């Protein structure tokens, strides 16, 4: 009996300024394979389906259990983590492309540093006085913790930006992930004392107003974060903040 194989098609591009081409690989099927294993198979035997010598595919990956956020790519057109994209569950041939909303580095690797830059601009942290021992943190109800924990699981994979029709070269929208992080820090007992500057940051161009409620983000979030709730909640916060600072001058 001939061994079972399947086809993987990969969009390849050596450098951002070089031309794009597609390559097809025929891989040996094993149970429980994921897209990462496919890419490793190719690296171990970098020959295309028609026997042409190619090279290992460049891609980001680290934890391989969907918690580091590195391996997001388009698998059959959907933004998702390659590590949890199981071959058994995918339509063949499997189509792999890099995320399109971020600058390409090479092959399936893109540069998502803008997401971290935006976390900086929106001041997504709790400003503590110092690391010395000054006793316990604020008390928190289990209910608040549960919401906060859900929000704080964002792995900055970029799927929600990739799928958002308002994230493109015409708009500067920061995307749902950042807005949701602002919600997280604004609900923390210490963080809420510093909500103003975060909301100010979301009031400028590229801020919260660019969201037009297509609600795609929530469907591709690998962590099941209620992004649409975060967007609505922060929308309300920004509005109240804007009115307050207009009426009371701060």
């Amino acid at each position: 009996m001939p061994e079972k194989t399947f086809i993987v098609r990969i969009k390849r591009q050596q450098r951002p300024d070089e031309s794009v081409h597609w390559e097809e690989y025929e891989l040996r099927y094993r149970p429980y394979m994921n897209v990462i294993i496919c890419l490793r198979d190719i690296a171990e035997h970098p020959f295309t389906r028609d026997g042409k010598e190619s090279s290992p595919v460049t891609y980001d990956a680290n934890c391989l259990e969907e918690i580091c956020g590195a391996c997001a790519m388009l698998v059959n057109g959907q933004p998702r983590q390659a590590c949890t994209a199981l071959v058994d569950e995918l339509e063949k041939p499997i189509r792999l492309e890099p995320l399109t909303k971020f600058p390409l580095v090479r092959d399936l690797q893109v540069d998502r540093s803008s997401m971290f830059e935006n976390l900086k601009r929106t001041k997504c942290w709790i400003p503590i006085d110092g690391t010395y021992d000054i006793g316990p943190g604020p008390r928190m109800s289990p209910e608040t913790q549960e919401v906060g924990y859900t929000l704080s699981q964002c792995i900055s994979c970029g799927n929600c930006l990739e799928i958002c029709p308002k994230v493109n070269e015409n708009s500067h929208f920061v995307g749902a992930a950042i807005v949701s992080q602002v919600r997280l820090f604004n609900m923390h007992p210490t963080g809420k004392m510093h909500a103003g500057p975060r909301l100010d940051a979301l009031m400028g161009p590229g801020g919260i107003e660019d969201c037009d409620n297509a609600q795609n983000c929530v469907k591709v979030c690998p962590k099941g974060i209620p992004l649409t709730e975060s967007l609505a909640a922060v929308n309300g916060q920004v509005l109240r903040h804007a009115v307050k600072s207009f009426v009371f001058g701060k």
Partner: protein
Amino acid sequence: MSVAASHSRTSYILDKLQSLSGVIPIGAFLAEHFWSNSYALVSAKSYDNVSSELQLIPWRIFVESTVLWLPLLFHSFYGLYIWWMGKSNVLGHPWMSNWLFTLQRVTGIIAFAFIAWHVYTERFVGRGMTAYADVQASMMNPWFVTFYLIGIAAASFHLGNGLWNFACKWGIAVSVKAQRAAGWFGAAVAVSFTLMGVAIVLGLHYGKFPLGGYVQ
């Protein structure tokens, strides 16, 4: 994809005004407009009465400009800018809310075109003094009727879906449950406005007064 370092609030205010103007005054006017035109389903006389009454609003030009023309122009042109900023991907990801996002833009364009034509013919050519008989005459043209039906459906959808958007974008409906409720409310508005509009157009087209039973 970045929050601009500048803390300019102009775009925020313009965006909020665009969103607000769709509900008040434009949405409110649409409701009023459907309401007064519904007299066409009662009797020709009551329609003509309401029509002439509306001519007698004091400071008419001023009221019309601030409550209607300016908001409408702003909502439309800023809406076109918002449309340009988005790139629909509904074909690859045909989810319900993604369709609504795309349709909001498509219906916006249709409604814009329809309203521009409607205003031109009724308000400027007809100088807003159209009587039942004139309107009914124009409604004999099947192209007219079709265009009206499409325009009414588009405007109604745009308003209903816009109300849902409004609830989310103004932080009124936050939880998934509340957003779903707002969605049903928007859908109810869209459907009832469409039905009302269709009834008016067909009533004029066929010259029937289905609500005229109690007029003696």
